[in-house]
């Protein structure tokens, strides 16, 4: 057995799977806590109202009641949550925790703490609200209408601000003028729920004696949460510790501190005790921030030879009642990535943020790139139809070629590496198959292929600084060989079910040349994790923490070798490390070997190292620990192409996805099993948005989709059995290890792929396929409008 420990590229089963399946999970609701009290919220039943009264007399008199904090109490105990990524001109710089005007149904107005969860709910119901209704503003159209009721003071016409990216207007105008074909369409990407398996939750414990607030939270970004909590509660960073236990999915819904979470912490401080809140599914449907929510008017100009001249879009972002910490961020990313993987003479987009009386919107897997892909790929498809060209051919003609890379787009993104054409051709080839002979006459079947790039390694410090986004974009790791030779990795990224702890262990084990099971990865605790504001967002964890870990492991492996060489009285390059696959660190099978049969085990090397022995100089470092901060030189871009085959039932309007083929290039894959799971899961989510998911309200702005009865998520049976995921590999040129992200890629393309396939199946309605989801009733309405009768479909 040699010292070769090849872990990168191996399909190792994710380490958390067995633990979770066997009931060993530690989710927020599972955590044991002594003397914990339980919280429930008083939420606004109206979309827009002045809170004239909050009478908790009856609740406070109940012996089960520990505390009630209403708007006035909260005003004295909390400051507003600061926003970070603002639109130019944005009038609202923070999100208040204490409010006297409810701006969306479900907005938390107060918190009740009681001895049991049921008592807390009972007492929350016992609070008497005196609300003076204000006119609701449920849609962007309502908000922008003349004389619309104002949602946010200071926002003229309910506009939160605007920003433009890309080519100057005159270049766009010139491109439109010389085009043979200009395709313009209106697009609607509705609000959607993230629907994590585990809703949100907080367990906050405050010790008055030490002044320490310990917060366990189902959070995707513990450091960002701590930073916001300090601002809200007026505490110092060293007084607040945030720990994310097992997190049952987030998809962007748990990236920022919410006002209700802040109230739980304020209540713990007020009580000098522990308070837990576990969000119900019903609350998650009304109170958790939503995703997407974009309307667009977009154009594609094409020359007579089928060359893209310009992409141009006006985007309306439904921000809801408040711009969250990242505000219109996802919509800005739509604008930045509208051009996608194609050449064009010009490309630009304007984003306008709009306030409505609905729950705020924010990050959701794909972060604006799904919207961009839908708009762009539908426009390309429509242009191909108007030009009489094959859509695949039109795409291939305009794709950026490998020899053109690196290539900087009109919005300033520099694509580093990849082969966009190879990926698209592969997806198209996979999807090629003869139609089944037994389709009934009312079924039309067709396939489409679409393409996108995926931002990853978000983000270089310089980029965030240029945008004025006050978050850290770099990522740090701390890699330690313990005194017994085992290995511990600390990172600021966190596990949300994606398997990052396994991938990081693989990188560390390979870099050190040790067996995988020697490595433990510790994540999610602000007291021990290196600082990370963005943590596991934005397909960045593997690229940035992984990149840092590659460097740290190289350095630490060198230090171990030098130590061992010293003990073996040899030069480092004369020493050989040989570790058997199943050896433990103290085994003779895990040793550095010098000349003449001399050897020292891995454990003994580490152990002596910790005693401070074997240093060449007194000033040499002792602890076998490397801290590396990696600030990427630029973003790195993964990319992919998806092909969908759909069967459209002309009579009922139902669209069934009968085959799906995804080809991605995410550079070097650390764990193909995890990569497959990430892409497949993303596809499933994307198919839901393509076909069924839409968070709706009624005319009064009250949520209609309040459970999985009204809100249809795709189930296993809705994912085609013919689902193929392949990866090509063009290593990143800017990330150590050659990694690129893949957390969002699967979710970016399905709506575009499905809608383009429906368009190919039923060209009569192609021009209408610009709004999601493609529910049976919506598709049937389009068919009816195109003169395809329900019976006509049947023959």
């Amino acid at each position, binding site marked *: 057995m040699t010292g070769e420990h090849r872990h990168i590229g191996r399909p190792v089963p994710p380490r958390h799977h067995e633990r979770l399946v066997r009931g060993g999970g530690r989710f927020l609701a599972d955590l044991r806590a002594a003397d914990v009290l339980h919280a429930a919220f008083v939420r606004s039943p109206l979309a827009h109202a002045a809170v004239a009264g909050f009478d908790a007399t009856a609740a406070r008199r109940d012996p089960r009641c520990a505390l009630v904090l209403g708007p006035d109490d909260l005003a004295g105990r909390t400051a507003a949550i600061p926003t970070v990524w603002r639109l130019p001109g944005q009038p609202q710089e923070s999100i208040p925790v204490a409010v006297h005007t409810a701006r969306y149904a479900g907005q938390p107005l107060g918190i009740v703490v009681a001895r049991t*969860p*049921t008592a807390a*709910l*009972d007492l929350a119901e016992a609070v008497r609200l005196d609300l003076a209704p204000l006119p609701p503003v449920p849609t962007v159209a309502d908000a922008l209408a003349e004389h619309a009721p104002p949602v946010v003071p200071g926002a003229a016409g309910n506009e939160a601000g605007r920003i433009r990216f890309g080519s100057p207007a005159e270049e766009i105008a010139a491109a439109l003028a010389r085009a043979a074909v200009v395709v313009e369409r209106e697009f609607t990407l509705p609000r959607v729920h993230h629907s994590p398996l585990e809703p949100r939750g907080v367990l906050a414990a405050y010790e008055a004696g030490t002044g320490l607030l310990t917060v366990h939270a189902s959070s995707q970004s513990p450091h960002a949460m701590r930073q916001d909590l300090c601002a809200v509660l007026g505490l110092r960073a060293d007084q607040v510790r945030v720990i994310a236990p097992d997190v049952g999915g987030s998809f962007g819904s748990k990236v920022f501190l919410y006002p209700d979470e802040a109230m739980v912490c304020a209540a713990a401080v007020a009580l000098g005790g522990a308070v837990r809140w576990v969000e*119900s*599914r*019903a*609350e998650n449907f009304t109170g958790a921030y939503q995703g997407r929510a974009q309307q667009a008017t977009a154009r594609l100009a094409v020359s007579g030879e089928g060359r893209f001249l310009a992409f141009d879009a006006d985007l309306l972002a439904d921000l809801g009642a408040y711009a969250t910490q990242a505000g219109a961020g996802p919509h800005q990313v739509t604008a930045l990535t509208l051009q996608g993987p194609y050449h064009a003479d010009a490309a630009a987009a304007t984003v306008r943020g709009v306030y409505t009386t609905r729950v705020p919107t924010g990050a959701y897997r794909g972060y604006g790139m799904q919207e961009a892909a839908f708009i762009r790929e539908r426009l390309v498809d429509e242009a191909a139809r108007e030009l009489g060209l094959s859509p695949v051919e039109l795409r291939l003609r305009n794709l950026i070629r490998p020899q053109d890379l690196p290539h900087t787009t009109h919005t300033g993104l520099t694509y580093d590496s990849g082969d966009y054409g190879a990926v698209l051709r592969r997806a198209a080839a996979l999807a090629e198959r003869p139609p089944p002979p037994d389709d009934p006459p*009312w079924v039309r079947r067709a396939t489409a292929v679409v393409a996108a790039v995926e931002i990853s390694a978000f983000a270089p410090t310089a980029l965030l600084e240029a945008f004025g986004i006050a978050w850290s974009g770099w990522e740090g790791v701390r890699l330690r060989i313990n005194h017994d030779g085992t290995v511990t990795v600390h990172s600021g990224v966190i596990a949300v079910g994606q398997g990052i702890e396994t991938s990081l262990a693989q990188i560390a084990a390979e870099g050190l040349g040790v067996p995988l099971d020697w490595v433990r990865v510790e994540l999610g605790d602000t007291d021990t994790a290196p600082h990370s504001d963005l943590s596991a967002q934005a397909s960045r964890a593997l690229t940035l923490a992984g990149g840092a870990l590659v460097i740290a492991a190289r350095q630490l492996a060198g230090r171990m070798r030098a130590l061992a060489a010293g003990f073996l009285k040899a030069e480092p390059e004369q020493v050989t490390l040989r570790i058997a696959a199943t050896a433990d660190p103290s085994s003779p099978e895990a040793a550095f070997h010098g000349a003449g049969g001399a050897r020292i085990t891995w454990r003994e090397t580490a152990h002596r190292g910790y005693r401070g022995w074997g240093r060449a100089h007194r000033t040499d470092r002792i602890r076998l620990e490397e801290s590396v901060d990696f600030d990427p030189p630029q973003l790195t871009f993964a990319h992919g192409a998806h092909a969908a085959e759909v069967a459209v039932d002309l*009579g*009922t*309007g*139902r669209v069934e996805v009968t085959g799906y083929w995804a080809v991605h290039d995410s550079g070097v894959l650390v764990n193909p099993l995890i990569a497959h799971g990430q892409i497949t899961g993303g596809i499933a989510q994307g198919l839901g948005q393509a*076909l*069924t998911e839409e968070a709706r309200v009624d005319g009064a702005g009250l949520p209609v989709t309040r*459970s999985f*009865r009204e809100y*249809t998520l*795709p*189930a296993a*049976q*809705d994912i085609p059995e013919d689902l193929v995921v392949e990866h090509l590999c063009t290593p990143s040129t800017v990330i150590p290890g050659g990694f690129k992200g893949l957390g969002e890629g699967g979710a970016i393309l399905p709506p575009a792929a499905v809608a383009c396939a429906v368009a190919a199946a039923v060209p009569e309605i192609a021009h209408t396929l610009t709004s999601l989801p493609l529910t*049976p*009733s919506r598709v*049937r*309405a389009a068919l009816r409008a195109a003169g395809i*009768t*329900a*019976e006509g*479909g*049947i023959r």
Partner: protein
Amino acid sequence: MSAVAFDYTAPTTLDGALGALDAPGRTVALLAGGQSLVPLLTSRQVRPDVVVDLNGVAGLAGIGIGADRVRIGAMTRLREVERHRGLAAALPVLASAAAAVAHPHIRVRSTLGGSLCHAAPAAELPAVALALGAQVVLRSARGVRSVPAGRFATGAGTTVRAPDEVVTEIVFPRTGPFTYEFSELCTRGSTGYPVAGVCLGLRADGGLVRAARVVVAGCGPVPVRLPGVEAALVGRAVAGPHPGLVASVVAEATRPGSTGPEDREYRAEVAGVLLVRALAARAGREGR
């Protein structure tokens, strides 16, 4: 979420259950399979003072196949209805409609009586019970009565069951020369909530419709028979063509004065499409 506190009683006899229902001034909820009631309780949409659990009551479950009638106990699980061999031969449409409800985890708990009492507008079994002309048998301390399935549900989620009554069994006439089938469109795959459903009963001879029974679900608060459509089918070739049939289903299922969900036109059109396809499938099976 957790339910508002309630009293709970689990009688083991029908008399015990009827006694528990005699609770003047208190609201009582009957717990059968719990697949609808429990979510309503925990979301606090239903707030009974007492929950009477019927799961331990002897004699409320079971399937009896007689020469003229099939009797199914109200607490019979849908999974049992779906898999019962005798029933598959006697009333196959019941088995196939039961199999169309949600997914197996739910059907293992969910009961026939519970399904009828929950009276969801697009639900499968109330539509089939109506088409088959079933009788719903109710018992109370006052006595026994039998209500035709077509008069049992009075609206979405409401029935003629009095607060002191328990549905004990559902009695289905054997179908004689009629052959029934049920089909539906769901919000997703086969396990989503139904959008619209159709139960078609047909007596055919020589490829021609001699008599028809058509029930549509999902187009209004309760499933309804469409006598106009039934009459129009008589004398037609089963195989069609059926020009104007979808339009007649839409017209009759959404006739003025009736109410329904906002997208009822679409749902009724789906019901019409399902009906035409059921006829075509029937003709195909019989080789015509």
